[in-house]
């Protein structure tokens, strides 16, 4: 393992510093916590998709041995609605009580909390809570929510429409289509997904009445956001009397960003019973209540010249928001989606129209990629459909339209200004690994043998490093999206770094230590990273949108710069030199060019805390806080390819090869970035081939409500991934880092689906409307296509 004295750690694949506790079973997850006097909670939930609550009878349940308290929505007086943190113009914001009071609007909507001396007692008693339901008609399908006669879910939202939103130039787009010689039109459904972080959501809420302090341990990607939303907007309790701790968190993928009903109710209830309460979601509850992802129905049209230039893109999307507005739900199908529709291509004109609808389903919000996978899927699918229409090679069409290499800004037709890009280079690199010509030749041979082999590409872009506060504020965000970084140098020269971002698998304790050890020239073992505790960290916006290294890392970098500036003053004083003649090299403050005239870092640290011989007017101590607010998003991009074989008889798709070339800017730890690409690609393949949340029409039941019914990718369903990178540093932040957490998920889905379509093309198949491309769906497609397919394709 490299140490700081070897060389720079930035760019090295050092082993993760957090791993020893995880591989020995010594991690501390929320559900591991046991406090004196602990009680346990279970929630009573609606078994119906839409039902009025006539009456809740808790008498029998209350009498159950071990029950401490039972509360319903009516008991929670003075408690506000769960807030929506992103307000679009004319957005309909319906009430979202932490416990449903009059009406339950999706299967799983909580109506009561049962608190008992043991988990079993709580669960048993919850069974005895009698709810008198008045079941109403429901609507779950995205495309039917706004239909005439559909069940109405909220009074404030006629026709179940939460918002309509558009971006781009409608007139220019219409004009482009009018004169376009080739137009391709497809309906593309981006199905609903369930995040399925392996650790179910959990919380422990403890109120201490002697001090009025409330501590909440919660599976959160952003504990400060949890605290702010819960205290200021819902419970009305003082923010400074609440400490939120997100300890080890077992994955998030977006689903642990949001403020949920359960931790809110537990935080409220602990103040009533004055005992700690623990609640841990079962997986069934997780399926029903963790915010879900995607769920778009889109009509997309691409206008092309005969030579293959993109003249226009027209998009009409209906986005399913579920039964209530989850914390950041409105942003996902709008500003994280519509603004990405320019892709990596020069486009003549773009217009997108999005309607957000309520349905009797679990709320939908950000899931890994959040809006950007939907955009990338649309563009990368329609461009391959366009190539088919032009009878042009898919890569030739892409290359004809790539935005040429640029280092400092490209203004898209949909508001964003890309930071830096070299899209052709990523594809070039991909083709050094993949012999495309040879593949096509072999494919011809395979096809003659009756094999269905295909290749699909995805030359994607995404926007991450979220986000410039002023920009997102003007777009409706009710929060800033900066990040904080505190660097605390102790008197002994050891360093504690406190970050407002949060690791739930990303490896902050390793990557941030690499950054700090390098910049301060201290051994990595002298650096500790603290995250996930509002009691320790000034403030923070947390981790999502691939922002930790770029936004959080830059905040840390800024604090280190300040430490160095202060250190120079202290060292200059000791050396009787001028601070402006000082430099910081190899862990010591020295007179520029004179390594012999130097004060080591440790001595400066000690002097700062024992300031006997000290500059006049300078404060003692060596600790700096910085808040970094980026000036722009960053825009990672890349080229992915997938090779598949489809079994003609069963419809089963086998992924034979998956190649990912990503450009995420500078990389601190390549091993960790590769790992995130692997996991992201697996989730993208999962969406393409297996995953999908299905609600039954009529009953509104989530049919895919367990891990038995929802097909998560397993080890034997996936290949080894071939990964590589190009490096186009961003100029947005001083580290040149773009962000790497979501690229795989964004890129993979279209690459896989394009590959399957390519495999099925000899049968006359050029599109499949809905994912996943499960064996059943592919088999049906093959059966339907055969009569129209070429007779020569018979085996």
């Amino acid at each position, binding site marked *: 393992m490299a140490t700081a004295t070897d060389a720079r750690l930035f760019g090295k694949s050092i082993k993760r510093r957090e791993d020893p506790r995880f591989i020995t079973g010594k991690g501390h997850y929320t559900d591991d916590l046991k406090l004196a006097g602990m009680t346990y909670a279970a929630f009573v939930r609606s078994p119906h998709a839409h039902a009025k609550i006539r009456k809740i009878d808790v008498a029998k349940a209350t009498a159950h041995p071990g029950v401490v308290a039972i509360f319903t929505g009516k008991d929670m007086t003075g408690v506000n609605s769960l807030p929506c943190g992103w307000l679009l113009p004319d957005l309909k914001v319906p009430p979202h009580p932490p416990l449903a009071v009059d009406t339950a609007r999706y299967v799983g909507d909580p109506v009561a909390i049962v608190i008992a001396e043991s988990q079993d007692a709580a669960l048993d008693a919850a069974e005895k809570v009698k709810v008198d339901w008045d079941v109403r008609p429901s609507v779950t399908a995205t495309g039917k929510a706004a239909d005439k006669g559909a069940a109405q879910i909220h009074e404030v939202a006629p026709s179940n429409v939460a918002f309509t939103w558009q971006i781009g130039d409608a007139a220019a787009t219409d004009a482009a289509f009018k004169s376009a010689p080739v137009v391709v039109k497809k309906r593309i459904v981006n199905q609903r997904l369930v995040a*399925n972080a392996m650790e179910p959501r959990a919380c422990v809420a403890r109120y201490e009445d002697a001090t009025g302090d409330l501590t909440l341990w919660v599976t959160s990607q952003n504990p400060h956001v949890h605290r702010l939303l819960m205290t200021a907007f819902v419970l009305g309790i003082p923010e400074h009397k609440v400490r939120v701790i997100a300890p080890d968190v077992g994955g998030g993928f977006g689903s642990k960003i949001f403020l949920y009903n359960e931790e809110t109710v537990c935080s409220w209830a602990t103040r009533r019973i004055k005992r700690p309460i623990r609640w841990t979601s079962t997986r069934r509850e997780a399926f029903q209540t963790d915010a879900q992802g995607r769920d778009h129905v889109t009509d997309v049209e691409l206008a092309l010249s005969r030579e293959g230039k993109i003249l226009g893109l027209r998009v009409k999307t209906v986005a399913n928001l579920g039964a209530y507005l989850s914390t950041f739900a409105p942003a996902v199908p709008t500003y994280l989606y519509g603004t990405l529709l320019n892709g990596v291509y020069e486009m003549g004109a773009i217009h997108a129209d999005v309607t957000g609808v309520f349905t009797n389903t679990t709320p939908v919000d950000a899931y890994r990629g959040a809006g950007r996978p939907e955009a990338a899927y649309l563009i990368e699918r329609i461009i391959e459909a366009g190539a088919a229409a032009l009878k042009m090679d898919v890569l030739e069409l892409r290359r004809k339209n790539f935005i040429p290499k640029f280092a400092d800004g490209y203004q898209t037709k949909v508001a964003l200004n890309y930071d830096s890009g070299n899209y052709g280079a990523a594809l070039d690199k991909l083709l050094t690994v993949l012999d495309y010509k040879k593949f096509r030749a072999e494919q011809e041979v395979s096809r003659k043998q009756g094999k269905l082999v295909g290749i699909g590409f995805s030359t994607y872009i995404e926007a991450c490093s979220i986000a410039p506060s002023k920009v997102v504020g003007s777009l409706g965000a009710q929060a800033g999206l900066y990040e904080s970084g505190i660097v605390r140098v102790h008197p002994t020269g050891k360093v504690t770094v406190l970050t407002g971002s949060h690791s739930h698998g990303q490896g902050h304790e390793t990557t941030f230590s690499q950054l700090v050890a390098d910049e301060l020239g201290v051994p990595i073992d002298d650096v500790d990273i603290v995250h996930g505790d509002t009691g320790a960290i000034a403030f923070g916006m947390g981790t999502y949108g691939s922002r930790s290294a770029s936004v959080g890392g830059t905040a840390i970098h800024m604090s280190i710069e300040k430490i160095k500036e202060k250190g120079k003053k202290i060292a200059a004083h000791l050396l009787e030199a001028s601070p402006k003649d000082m430099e910081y090299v190899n862990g010591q403050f020295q007179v520029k060019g004179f390594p012999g005239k130097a004060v080591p870092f440790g001595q400066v640290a000690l002097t700062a805390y024992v300031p006997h011989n000290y500059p006049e007017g300078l404060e003692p101590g060596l600790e700096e806080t910085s808040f970094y607010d980026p000036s722009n998003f960053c825009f990672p991009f890349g080229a992915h390819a997938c090779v598949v074989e489809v079994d003609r008889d069963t419809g089963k798709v086998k992924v034979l090869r998956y190649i990912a070339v990503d450009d995420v800017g500078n990389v601190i730890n390549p*091993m960790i970035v590769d790992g995130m690409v692997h996991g992201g690609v697996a989730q993208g393949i999962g969406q393409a081939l297996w995953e999908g949340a299905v609600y039954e029409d009529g009953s509104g039941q989530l049919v895919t409500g367990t891990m038995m019914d929802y097909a998560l990718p397993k080890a*034997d369903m996936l290949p080894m991934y071939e990964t590589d990178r190009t490096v186009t540093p961003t100029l947005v932040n001083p580290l040149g880092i773009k962000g790497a957490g979501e690229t795989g998920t964004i890129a993979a889905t279209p690459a896989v689906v394009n590959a399957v379509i390519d495999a099925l093309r000899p049968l006359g198949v050029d599109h499949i409307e809905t994912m996943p491309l499960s064996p059943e769906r592919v088999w049906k497609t093959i059966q339907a296509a055969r009569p129209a397919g070429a007779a020569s394709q018979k085996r």
Partner: protein
Amino acid sequence: MKHSVKMTINGQTQSHEVEPRLLLVHYIRETVGLTGTHVGCDTSQCGACTILMNGQAVKACTVFTVQAEGAKITTIEGLAKNGELHPIQQGFWEKHGLQCGFCTPGMILAAHQLLERYPKPSEDQIRHQLEGNLCRCTGYHNIVKAIQWASENMAGAKAGVK
């Protein structure tokens, strides 16, 4: 009506009075206090609760505590010996076989039996044997690599717990 049970967990004798419905995983986590064994689902799909019971990798959510009467159990906490990581643990560290760490204890113990069955497993064998363990972070690539690393480093040295 409670039943008394007695078993050995990581070399220590445990005896408690338990309800007949108490699952072994909850006994290990809540009664004995070893929280390295995780609960990731309620349908025996995820494998986060995998332990070794009399040398066999078993999902502790599919066993009642009373069924483990007299059993010899190893959890993730009992795998390292005298502060030395087991080669499988080491392999997961070397090859970045984990991210959030939640599925890791179960993966490591499933891999333990895998390597007993197939000391030199092929990639296909590894993938097939891990069918009962879900990971949402790694896409399995580095888990396969970790187990391959362990296989190479266990050759010769007779590692393993019975």
